[in-house]
């Protein structure tokens, strides 16, 4: 049920609207984390929600990420629907025991008795000169955890519908929000409550010469590269994965089979990144169609640089994507 009217919103506004609608629709939904109450979150994603829904349903927690995850799990065990914010994805690390040992495991270890409707939202990624540790992209770590889902939207309109699906979901969902897009991405967003299905990738640009695959903050980078390539007569197909787990393998493989050339783009560290999983799936499922090796454009095997003058050399750019396209097209 998509409402007729749409307005232009940025990512922060779209996510705020989704949280607002979820809180209004289901009284089991609770929004909590560090600074999400009175302040409205360090990025203002939860702005106005505490005033509207009260301190019971939108509340600040003590500054302790493992405690936040444990609280989210316990509340869900007791029948609530937790929407926890971790201030930056790079601050998920103190909570890894809760995440790896419990969040995705409870349904399995209780043989279905304890399911956990928990959404963990966290801003991730670089491109905006944040301090050290604030630009990490730990999606591969999360995707490597059984029992959780991982969603990374690339636009305000998609984010709203995907977040509402995540909150309705019976399983834990990590919802990573690219910091670069918070105010940088603006799009028409339908009013009212609507959901977009998890677990489906989508082709955001058609093309027949090569395929770009990415998600979140990399989608605009891939589209920019595709635009430049088009001026040289190269038609690039662009896939926005949106959900990393569960992965829409069919759409991914079909998009690669169509062009026979694939470049995977992600801003996390290259080795063991989620793009490696994509490359492996392509090798397993579409090798006969490949006319060139799969190329990864990713961060380097180093910490995300806190040095603002040179961080753009770490985070994939359209220029780097174009170089990779040239490589697969001339192989």
């Amino acid at each position: 049920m998509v409402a007729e009217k749409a307005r232009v919103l940025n990512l922060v506004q779209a996510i705020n609207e989704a949280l607002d609608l979820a809180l209004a629709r289901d009284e089991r939904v609770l929004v909590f984390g560090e600074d999400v109450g009175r302040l409205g979150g360090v990025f203002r994603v939860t702005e106005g929600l505490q005033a509207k829904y009260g301190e019971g349903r939108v509340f600040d927690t003590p500054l302790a990420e493992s405690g936040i995850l444990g609280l989210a799990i316990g509340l869900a065990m007791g029948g609530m629907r937790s929407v926890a914010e971790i201030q930056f994805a790079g601050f998920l690390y103190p909570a890894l025991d809760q995440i790896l040992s419990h969040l995705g495991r409870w349904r399995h270890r209780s043989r279905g008795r304890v399911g956990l409707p928990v959404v963990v939202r966290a801003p991730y990624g670089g491109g905006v000169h944040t301090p050290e540790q604030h630009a990490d992209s730990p999606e591969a770590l999360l995707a490597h955890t059984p029992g959780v889902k991982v969603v990374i939207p690339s636009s305000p309109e998609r984010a709203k519908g995907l977040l509402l699906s995540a909150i309705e979901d019976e399983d834990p969902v990590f919802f990573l929000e690219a910091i670069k897009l918070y105010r940088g991405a603006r799009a028409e967003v339908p009013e009212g409550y609507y959901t977009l299905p998890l677990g489906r990738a989508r082709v955001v640009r058609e093309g027949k010469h090569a395929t770009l695959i990415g998600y979140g903050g990399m989608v605009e980078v891939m589209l920019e590269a595709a635009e430049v390539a088009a001026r040289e007569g190269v038609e690039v197909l662009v896939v926005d994965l949106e959900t990393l787990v569960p992965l829409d393998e069919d759409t991914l493989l079909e998009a690669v089979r169509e062009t026979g050339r694939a470049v995977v783009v992600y801003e996390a560290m290259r080795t063991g990144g989620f793009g490696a999983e994509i490359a492996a799936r392509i090798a397993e499922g579409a090798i006969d169609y490949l006319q060139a090796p799969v190329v990864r454009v990713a961060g380097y095997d180093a910490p995300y640089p806190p040095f603002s003058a040179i961080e753009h050399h770490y985070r994939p750019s359209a220029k780097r994507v174009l170089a990779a396209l040239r490589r697969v097209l001339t192989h």
Partner: protein
Amino acid sequence: MKLKVVQYLDKEEFPLSEGEALALYRAMRRARFFDEKALLLQRQGRLGVYAPFMGQEAAQVGVALALGDRDWVVPSYRESALLLARGLPIHVLILYWRAHPAGWRFPEGVRAVNPYIPIATQIPQAVGLALAGRYRGEDWVVATSIGDGGTSEGDFHEGLNFAAVFHAPVIFLVQNNQYAISVPRAKQMRVDYIARRAEGYGMPGVVVDGNDAFAVYLEAKKAVERARKGEGPTLLEALTYRLAPHTTSDDPSRYRTREEEEAWRSKDPILRLRKALEAAGLWDGDLEEALLRELEEEFARELALADQAPEPTPEVIVEHVYARLGLDQRRAWEALRRGKHVEELW
């Protein structure tokens, strides 16, 4: 803060009703009976690695019986006595320790979740579960448990702080059994009593003789009442001793003396309670014998039930990862179901 170890046994007064005292004894004796049988089964290869609780029955049963029907238990892995006293059927517990999937889904009516294997992660989760009751307008209280070693973990600190800040109705039972596997309490912390830490969180801290069922039960009851009335959490430290090894894979002779074990054996919580009951004319050899016969019969019945559980089939591995099988789980499920592995089916 001055802390005094609360103790009732070995004194003149008899602070409980006959019914309560007998219920404690029966549940503790039943738990001990299970523990002994479990160790035997393990030696026969009919149980997996097992964590015995022998010596800690008063601490666990005392708290279990202080709870109401609607209350929840969030246990660690040495809490089989707590689970039994909360109504988990023996055959389910046997299957749990056999690592059989049928033992990992606790029955709906049992208000206890599966034991936690990582240390202290249960603490913040117990706080969340307690708060969920408040949101739902159900006044359930949560009892969670941890050992002395577990209190060194960050999650213990975070969980207690959260509980205090949110005024959560939780009883934190610390079974201070003197050792974290081999590391003695004195190498774990500098405080005399763990309950002392409660003050730092802004909640009451109580330390009891953990081998005194009356003391544990009465103090746990007070804590439950406080929690139910909306007066927040309590840290309840029970001083006790693990008479058996850490698990069936452990060898305590490498880190503690026989003399020490014997000294604690003389403070066995079951013997002490039995003495009190006998002195009050509530128990005797005949009643003990009848109880043991009853327990023997019950255990035989329950073991037979556990033995009837069919061998799990491999596709169980990928079930209940998500509410519904995803593409990757479905592929694996179909392969395993056919006696294959997923890479064989390409």
